[in-house]
């Protein structure tokens, strides 16, 4: 899993039906010091919980498709949690 910050939202009415009721977020992947790494990507927020500015963690690759039990979706980046706090050796 990777961490990212939510920087925006994307609306799409025409989408694969497995995404019905879910929100798409624009996220910027971060490193362990919360510095941006790489380009922003689009991730699906299956429970509609995320808002702009929040730090989240997400799964990527084939595992992103099976985050919801008994429900596979053509997603390669799925948000699975919102981070309340995080600490490394010298930083919080």
């Amino acid at each position: 899993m990777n961490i990212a910050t939510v920087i925006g939202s994307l609306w799409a009415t025409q989408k694969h039906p497995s995404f019905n009721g879910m929100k798409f977020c624009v996220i910027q992947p971060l490193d362990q010091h919360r510095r941006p790494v790489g380009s922003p990507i689009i991730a699906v927020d299956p429970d509609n919980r995320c808002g702009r500015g929040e730090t989240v963690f997400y799964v990527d690759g084939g595992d992103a498709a099976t985050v919801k039990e008994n429900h596979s979706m053509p997603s390669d980046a799925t948000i699975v949690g919102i981070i309340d706090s995080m600490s490394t050796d010298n930083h919080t």
Partner: protein
Amino acid sequence: MFLAKVVGTVVATQKDPKLAGLKLLLVQNLTLDLELTKSFVVAADAVGAGTGEVVVCATGSSARLTEVTHNLPVDAVIMAIVDSLEVGGRITYNKMNDEKPVAAGPVS
């Protein structure tokens, strides 16, 4: 997933037999400011996208999880057509504003 613009269609007569009937589109990656980048991908279409539309593509094994791509040898699929995009509180794309005015036809 990544943001892309449909820039063309791909026609191939000689291909893996499983791909028969699959709609293949050429998509060009976009930045969040809707600027075209230099990278292209051939993607299968699962939502009925057309040329000029801004779409979202999934890659890797997840691309095989739509009805039209189930168990097919594809690694990129268009799974949503973008209506609008908001980044940092600013709407950077709105499909309604993007549509070209329809030219008036000849009066018959």
